[in-house]
């Protein structure tokens, strides 16, 4: 892909962190030329026409999300940038901010103009100290250049940006938990409704967007919409930043048009340059997604619809590749550790169930597994479906179901280490339902 067609990563490797360098590469051209001639609704329409979808994982159309934010509610509108990137395998926001912080600020100014927001919060993960420093430096430069603050570009438009450092909780990537954390409360997801677009931070209309979503805006606004829509698939336009990791020759961050075949991403010279060893599976969108077996990888393309048709998720674009030296039980055990540690402890199924599943996996790994354990893990996963406020429990539930189904042999091999594996875990003495 040519650098000029890269929506988010065009400035990578060009030392664009300073404002002068960023401007020299064409940055902030929207603010000086075009943006303030558009009305608010024209701005939102433009985003809607571009077909930009949220890049955080859910893929919700950004223009539609913005159109839900009520105008003239009498309350301030807040924009919150979700830079609490915690999904295992995802590292795009980290580098996007480090390499090109001014693009985020430019995108925020566009978003603020569209939503009529007076201020924005960038909720950065606590561990992202270099990012936070880079952002604060960029924000200070932008203030000095009158791109932020009062009366930007000689208009009546005023806009402030603050960086908020989180404390490093995965759940704070969920937008309502993020808002709770931003407010200074415990980071736990809220009951919905009300949705954040109506009553979010401090009960005011709030729009929470991913870093990559906001950083796509400058490119979209400085090019004709048709340039953006002709990339990607009919239902998912534009490009996406993929984080390729695992058993590939060149793991890294690659921007590619949506709809790129998965195998091209893994084998092309431009991208990951090939799989090390024999491919066993690919997790296409971050650790919570069900993996694809090699046969599925062949026909998979990197877009929302194809992944949904393969019963997995496009997610945040974190492609984790593993070869046949990896054991699915080990992989699942790591996920169990991660999700039971990161469960916020609010809903009963997630709070108790993730730890329950983890302890069953531990027993299997210690050679104390029983034949019924695969069914036990699957039934724990079934108990997560639709029973919790946020999808964190499902993030473990989906792997529990898919790993045990797709790599059953790995589990059976581990369970066979227990000499008594054919016996049930609990010898029942009471007939079910015999209590009456």
């Amino acid at each position, binding site marked *: 892909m040519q650098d000029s067609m890269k929506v988010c990563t065009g400035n990578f490797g060009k030392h664009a962190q300073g404002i002068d360098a960023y401007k020299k590469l064409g940055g902030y051209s929207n603010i000086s030329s075009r943006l303030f001639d558009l009305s608010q609704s024209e701005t939102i329409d433009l985003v809607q026409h571009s077909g930009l979808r949220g890049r955080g994982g859910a893929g919700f159309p950004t223009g539609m999300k913005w159109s839900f934010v009520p105008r003239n509610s009498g309350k301030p509108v807040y924009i919150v940038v979700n830079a609490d990137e915690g999904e295992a395998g995802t590292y795009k926001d980290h580098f996007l901010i480090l390499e090109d912080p001014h693009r985020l600020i430019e995108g925020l100014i566009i978003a603020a103009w569209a939503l009529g927001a007076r201020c924005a919060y960038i909720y950065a993960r606590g561990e992202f100290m270099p990012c936070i420093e880079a952002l604060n430096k960029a924000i200070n430069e932008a203030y000095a250049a009158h791109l932020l603050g009062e009366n930007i570009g000689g208009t009546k438009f005023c806009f402030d940006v603050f960086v908020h450092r989180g404390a490093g909780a995965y759940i704070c990537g969920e937008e309502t938990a993020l808002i709770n954390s931003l407010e200074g409360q415990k980071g736990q997801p809220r009951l919905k409704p009300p949705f954040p677009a109506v009553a979010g931070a401090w009960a005011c209309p709030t729009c929470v967007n991913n870093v990559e979503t906001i950083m796509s805006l400058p490119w979209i606004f400085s090019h004709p919409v048709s340039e953006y829509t002709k990339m990607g698939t009919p239902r998912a336009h534009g490009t996406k930043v993929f984080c390729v990791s695992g058993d590939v020759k060149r793991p890294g961050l690659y921007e590619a048009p949506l709809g790129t075949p998965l195998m091209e991403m893994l084998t092309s010279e431009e991208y990951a340059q090939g799989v090390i060893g024999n491919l066993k599976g690919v997790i296409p969108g971050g650790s919570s997604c069900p993996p694809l077996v090699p046969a599925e990888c062949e026909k998979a393309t990197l877009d929302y619809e194809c992944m949904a048709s393969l019963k997995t998720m496009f997610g945040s674009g974190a492609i984790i590749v593993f070869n046949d030296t990896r054991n699915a039980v080990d992989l699942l055990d790591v996920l169990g550790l991660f999700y039971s540690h990161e469960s916020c402890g609010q809903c009963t199924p997630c*709070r108790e169930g993730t730890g329950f599943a983890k302890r069953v996996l531990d027993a299997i790994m210690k050679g104390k597994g029983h034949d019924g354990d695969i069914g036990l893990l699957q039934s724990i996963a079934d108990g997560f479906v639709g029973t919790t406020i946020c999808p964190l429990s499902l993030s473990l539930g989906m792997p529990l179901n898919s790993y045990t189904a797709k790599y059953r042999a790995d589990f059976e091999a581990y369970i066979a280490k227990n000499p008594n594996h054919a016996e049930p875990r609990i010898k029942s003495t009471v007939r079910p339902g015999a209590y009456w």
Partner: protein
Amino acid sequence: MSNYYNMPKLPSAKSPMVTIKVDGKDMQVPGDTNLLEALQTVGIETPHVCYHPYLPVSGNCRQCLVEQEGPRGRALVISCYTPVAPGMVVYTPASSARVKNARRAVSEFMLVNHPLDCPICDKAGECTLQENYIEAGQDESRLNGDVGRNFHGNPAHQFVDSKGQLRGGKRVDLGPRIVLDEERCVQCDRCVRFMRSIAKSEQLQLASRGDRTFITTFPGEKLDHEYDLCVTDLCPTGALTAKYFRFQKRVWFLSRTPTVSMDDSLGANIWLDHADGFLWRVMPRCNPDVNRTWISNTSRLAFLEFSKNRLPASPLDAVREALKAPGKVALVAGGECTLEDLAALKLLKKSLGDRAELFGGTFKKIFPADGLSKSGDPMADRAGFKLMNVPDDNLGDLVKRASEFAVLVTVNADLFGEDASKASSLEKIATRIALAAFNTETVKKSQVAFGVNHWSEVAGTMVNCGGLLQKLSAAPTAPDAALVPAYSALTALAGNEVTEVSAAYKLAQGEAPALADVSFESIRSTGFMLDGVKA
């Protein structure tokens, strides 16, 4: 944690009725409430743990799941946070296997890390988890020692038991009145919400996350609040227990008597839990118009003194003799007097003729209302005094004119105990008679004392400060079976003894026209609103 501002909307008599479809059947339910309450009105109980009608909705236990027909098909929703909408289609476990399985799964998750020490748990018998297990669970255990449990708890309180299992703190001293068992806690956060939204003193918080979450106070602080014992009522499990009731009595041996706390003019509704002729505890009794489900520690713990320092039963002859003394008689009624006592007192005044005069009131201070279960006025039946046309605040008059009187009769009025300096001039009255439950200062200053039943041992009526006519019931806990209610003694002195409460209530009806149409039997447990009667 979430949405602390969402108080549930409860159905009322004024609720508009709407039709919803439950399990394929059309049902009429209140339209301005949540699904959980609405289903309750048509007799469908929904198991729940974290939901409480008088606390903000938290929606974290997930036990009350039902299925709702939506634009994208049938989805599981929590009934406590789903508002009723006309025409909505709902499925309960009666027709939906998915709901049944989901509730069963939640019930299992709830118990996975629960110690199941029911045999030694104080909450056993009134435990929400036990009820939900019968309602929604009934699973066999799928755990064994190889899988283990992760008992919740503060790492600082954890210990390793004799089987090598890491256990949570079992006796965490939360404050002067409350002990926390961290293992039993199911993180419903009812206590946190109560302290935050109702008591308005954020002393409790959930710390840590995942299955390591535990309830705690701020470092170095203790849970100490006038309403802190309410969290033991709210706790669905045996995690929060009251020190005074811990290991005292199995709850299934307790019988409950509904009555009204006579220490405050709001008349908080309470249960007297008794067994073997003793009171074991006092619990709040839900009355939406009075104290909802809250009761102050003072009212709750007052029962510990109810059987102590009591006057024994004695013959009435001594009182009868003393009343024969010549001169004016001052009849003083205290705030604990029921309407029946006041009617009997008026009967006695009539029988004594012109020489008797009625007084009433208290020397105790009036405090501002706390908005929960206390109006601050220690004169419990003040509105009843007004209704019965008995003076409720003329003790100052009595003190000034003390020398006019020859006989002083106090009924449940501890004048000397309340303010000895103000009451000292009453010693000028030569003959002093006290009808009282306790051996009070006034009794000690009186020549003749007559023991009567305490308010917890009498049936009767009172009017609270809002004009609500409330019924007291008698718990069989009198230390001396020969004790009689005050109205019985007073009517006997008047020469027309009434022993039955219904007959005494008829006397009160004769004195107060507002009661004429309200029979004693028709007063419901939540009271009867009298128009135009206020304290």
